[in-house]
């Protein structure tokens, strides 16, 4: 556990620990932002600002990583809620807006692109649970904390997500 400077308004948080988790946080922000890089960067900056200013307070009831993922997800959600209230912002981020950030499929092997497409096609909660449990090694209980849902609901999304993902991958067939 790093022993670096503590944040003034979040004394339980070690800045070096945050720095260590930065890459994972960005990866989770990418998932929350639907793979849009600029949006993920904005979300992460807002998350860090909320942490520095103490608007998001870590009380140590969960691991720092679980808490960070929850804050990132909530930040993404609140950005979208605010955006809906603003027609201008909605136009910027909506897929039909000419100046919206276009979704660009990153360069990667076809098989990986196929899996990502299948994941994106899942309902949001199923996608998020599978991402957290399979890729980030969170337990289903921790994933439930991140998503702010009950353990039973998280289990349901997990089981349904696995079944749906298998079905989609089978429908898509092998990568070209």
């Amino acid at each position, binding site marked *: 556990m790093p022993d670096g400077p503590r*944040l*003034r*308004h979040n004394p339980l948080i070690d800045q070096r620990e*945050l*720095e260590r988790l*930065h*890459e994972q*946080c*960005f*990866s989770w922000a*990418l*998932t929350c932002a639907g*793979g849009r*890089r600029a949006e*993920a*960067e904005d979300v*992460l*900056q807002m998350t*860090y*600002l909320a942490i*520095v*200013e*103490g608007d998001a307070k870590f009380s140590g009831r969960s691991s720092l990583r679980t808490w960070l993922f929850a804050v990132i997800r909530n930040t993404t959600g609140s950005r979208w809620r605010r955006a809906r209230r603003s027609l201008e912002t909605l136009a910027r981020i909506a897929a039909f807006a000419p100046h919206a950030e276009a979704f660009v499929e*990153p*360069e*990667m*092997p076809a*098989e*990986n*692109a*196929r*899996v*990502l497409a299948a*994941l994106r096609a899942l309902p949001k909660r199923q996608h998020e649970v*599978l*991402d957290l449990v*399979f*890729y980030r*090694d969170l337990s289903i209980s921790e994933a439930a904390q991140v998503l702010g849902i009950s353990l039973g609901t998280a289990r349901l999304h997990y089981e349904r997500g*696995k079944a749906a*993902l*298998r079905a989609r*991958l089978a429908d898509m067939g092998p990568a070209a």
Partner: protein
Amino acid sequence: MNDPTLDREDEVLKATVRDGLAARDRALPPPRFAHAWPGTERPRTATWRPALAGGLALAAIGAVSWMLLARPGGESASPADLRATVELARELSSPDYWRVPTDDLLAFAAPPLNAELPSPDGFHVSLEESLL
């Protein structure tokens, strides 16, 4: 990392998902931490301190205005000032008159009396004479 709760099919699915997301993360590397980190912490007093200073300034201006324009005994003494005068008179006439703060006495100035009192001619007694 193998999870004992996962069966063989789940392990394959997990590995597939991990490979896909890892490839995405390799293709979209994160910005540097220093780029995303807000840097210097903004003190939480930054927002309320100017408001407090403004409030204090307004209060000071109000107090000075009150002292200049509406203090008790001035030309425009208000009913509240008169009440204060009555209160001071009551305190001075009580057995504990010596408890009245000197500052109150120094600040006291009776409002001008707009009535003529009967005064016998030649009846002028100085303060010194009255004490004898």
